[in-house]
C-alpha cells in the first residue's frame, strides 16, 4: 500500500497527462470500445479510439504517432469493464515511454496480449454469471408482478456496476502500471471474493429455479375408491418436485452429456408437447 503510494508520488512530478486526458480516455473506452465490433479485431479499433487522444498528446511527431496508432489497432478483446485496467496500464506505459524511460513498444504489446485473456475470464464470470444473475433475479420477480421497478432497478444497478468497475480498474491500472492485473489476479481475496459471489449466485439461482420453472401434472386416478390427484401427492412429499426434476434433467444433459442449448431447447419442446398431448401436463 505505502509502497504503491510513494511510487505514484515519485512519478507524478514529471507526468505529461492530465486528469482530464485520463477521464476522456476512460469515457471513450466505456462508451465506444465495442462500437465497431467485428470478428477480425473485436475491440481493436475501439481500443485505438480510446487511446488515440493520449497518443496525440504524447507523440506530437507524426511518424511516431502513426506507428503508435497502428500498434493499437491490432486484435484486442477483453471484458468490457474489468478490462479497462489494461487500457489504464497501457496509457501509463506509453506515457513512461514518451517520458524517455526504458519502456519498449514490445513490452507494451506483450502486456496487452498477456492480460486480455485472464481479465476476460475473471470479468466475464463476475459480470455475466453473477452480477447479471442477481440483478435479473430480483428484477424479473418484480416485473412478473407488473412492477416497473423491475427493469428500472436492473438498468440502474448494472449501469452503476459497469461505470464503477471500469473507473476503478482503469485508474488502478494507470497508477500501478504493468503490475496491476498480475497483482489482482494473484491476490487471495480475489479468490475469496469470487467464492463469496458464487454463494450469492447459487442461492439466487436456486430461488429462481423454484419460482420460475413451472411444471404441474394434471394426472389423476382413483386409488382405493377415492380420487387421487398426482400433483397433490407430489406436493405432500415436497413442493416443486417436478420443476426440480426438469432442472436436474437439463443439467444432466448439459454437464454429463455435453449437449448444446439448441438440443435441449428442442428436447424441452418435445417433452412439453408430448406430455401435454398425453394429458400428463397441462
Amino acid at each position, binding site marked *: 500500500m505505502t509502497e504503491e503510494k510513494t511510487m505514484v508520488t515519485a512519478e507524478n512530478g514529471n507526468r505529461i497527462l492530465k486528469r482530464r486526458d485520463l477521464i476522456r480516455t476512460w469515457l471513450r473506452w466505456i462508451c465506444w470500445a465495442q462500437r465497431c465490433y467485428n470478428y477480425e479485431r473485436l475491440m481493436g479499433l475501439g481500443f485505438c479510439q480510446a487511446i488515440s487522444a493520449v497518443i496525440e498528446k504524447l507523440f506530437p511527431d507524426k511518424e511516431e504517432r502513426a506507428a503508435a496508432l497502428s500498434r493499437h489497432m491490432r486484435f484486442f478483446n477483453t471484458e468490457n469493464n474489468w478490462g479497462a485496467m489494461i487500457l489504464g496500464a497501457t496509457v501509463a506505459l506509453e506515457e513512461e515511454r514518451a517520458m524517455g524511460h526504458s519502456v519498449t513498444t514490445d513490452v507494451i504489446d506483450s502486456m496487452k496480449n498477456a492480460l486480455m485473456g485472464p481479465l476476460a475470464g475473471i470479468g466475464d464470470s463476475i459480470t455475466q454469471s453473477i452480477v447479471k444473475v442477481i440483478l435479473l433475479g430480483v428484477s424479473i420477480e418484480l416485473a412478473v408482478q407488473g412492477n416497473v421497478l423491475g427493469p428500472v432497478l436492473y438498468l440502474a444497478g448494472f449501469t452503476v456496476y*459497469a461505470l464503477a468497475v471500469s473507473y476503478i480498474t482503469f485508474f488502478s491500472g494507470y497508477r500501478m502500471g504493468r503490475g496491476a492485473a498480475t497483482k489482482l489476479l494473484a491476490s487471495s481475496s480475489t479468490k475469496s471474493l469470487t467464492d463469496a459471489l458464487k454463494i450469492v449466485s447459487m442461492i439466487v439461482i436456486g430461488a429462481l429455479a*423454484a419460482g420460475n420453472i413451472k411444471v404441474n401434472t394434471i394426472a389423476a386416478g382413483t386409488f382405493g375408491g377415492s380420487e387421487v390427484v398426482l400433483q397433490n401427492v407430489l406436493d405432500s412429499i415436497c413442493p416443486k418436485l417436478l*420443476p426440480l426434476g*426438469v432442472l436436474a434433467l437439463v443439467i444432466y444433459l448439459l454437464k454429463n452429456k455435453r449437449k448444446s442449448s*439448441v438440443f435441449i431447447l428442442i428436447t424441452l419442446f418435445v417433452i412439453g408437447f408430448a406430455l401435454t398431448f398425453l394429458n400428463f401436463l397441462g
Partner: protein
Amino acid sequence: MNHVVLALVIAFITWYVATAMPMFLRWSCYLGGPLVGGFVCGILFGDITYGLEVGATIQLAYLGAIAVGGTLPSELAIAGYLGTALTMSAGLSAEAGLTVAVALGSLGLLCRNAYMTLNSIVVHKADQYAAEGNARMVRLMNQYGSQVVPFLCYFIPGFLAMYFGSQAIESLMAVIPAKVITALGVTGGLIPALGIGLLLTYVWDKRFLPYAFIGFFLVAYLNLSIMFIAILGACIAVLYMFAADRREDSK
C-alpha cells in the same frame, strides 16, 4: 401509435441496442434484452403490465445467455425488442411469445454474423488513417463508419418483420388448435430450466451446491422473495469471506 411509426421505432431501437449504444449500457440492455424490451414496448404500446409480463417470461429463457469472446447463443436484441413487440402487437400470451422470440433470436444470428464479418472493411479503412497518423479519422471510422452495415442488417429486416409480421402471426394463431396453444404454454413453463441450467453450469462449484438447494427450497416451501434471499445470501457470503480470509491469515 401509427403502425408504420411503431415499426420504424422498434426497428430503430433494435439496431441501436444491437450495435450502437454506449458500451456501459450495451451489455445490460442486450443481455437483459427481453426484460428491458418488455418495459420499452410496454410504454410504446401503452400497456406496461402486459409488456413486463411478456418481457420477464422471455428473459427467463435467456438467463444463462453469456457473451464470451464475441460469440453469442442467440441474437438478443432481436429476440428481446423485436420479439416482444411482435408478441404484443399480435396480442399473444407470454408463453406463445416466448416461442416467437426464441425463433427470431436464432434467425437473428444471421444479422449478427453479417455485420461482424463485414465491419472488417471499416477496420481496414481505419488502418490506413492510422498509418497516416490521422487520429481524428480513426475515431470517425469507429464512431460512424462502424454503423453503416449494422443499420442495414438490423433496421431493414426489423422494420419488415414488424410491419408484416404481426398480421401473419395473428392469422397463424387463429388456425392453431387449442391443444397446441396449451402445449406452447406448458413448454413455456419448461424453458426457463434451460436458462437456469446454463447459469448453474457456468457458476458450478460442488462446494456451494447446497446453497442452490437452500435457495430452491426457501422459495418452494416458504415462497420468500428473491430480494430477501439475495440479501441472506450476501450476508452468508460476507461471513464466508471473513472466515476464508482468517483461515488464510492463520496459515
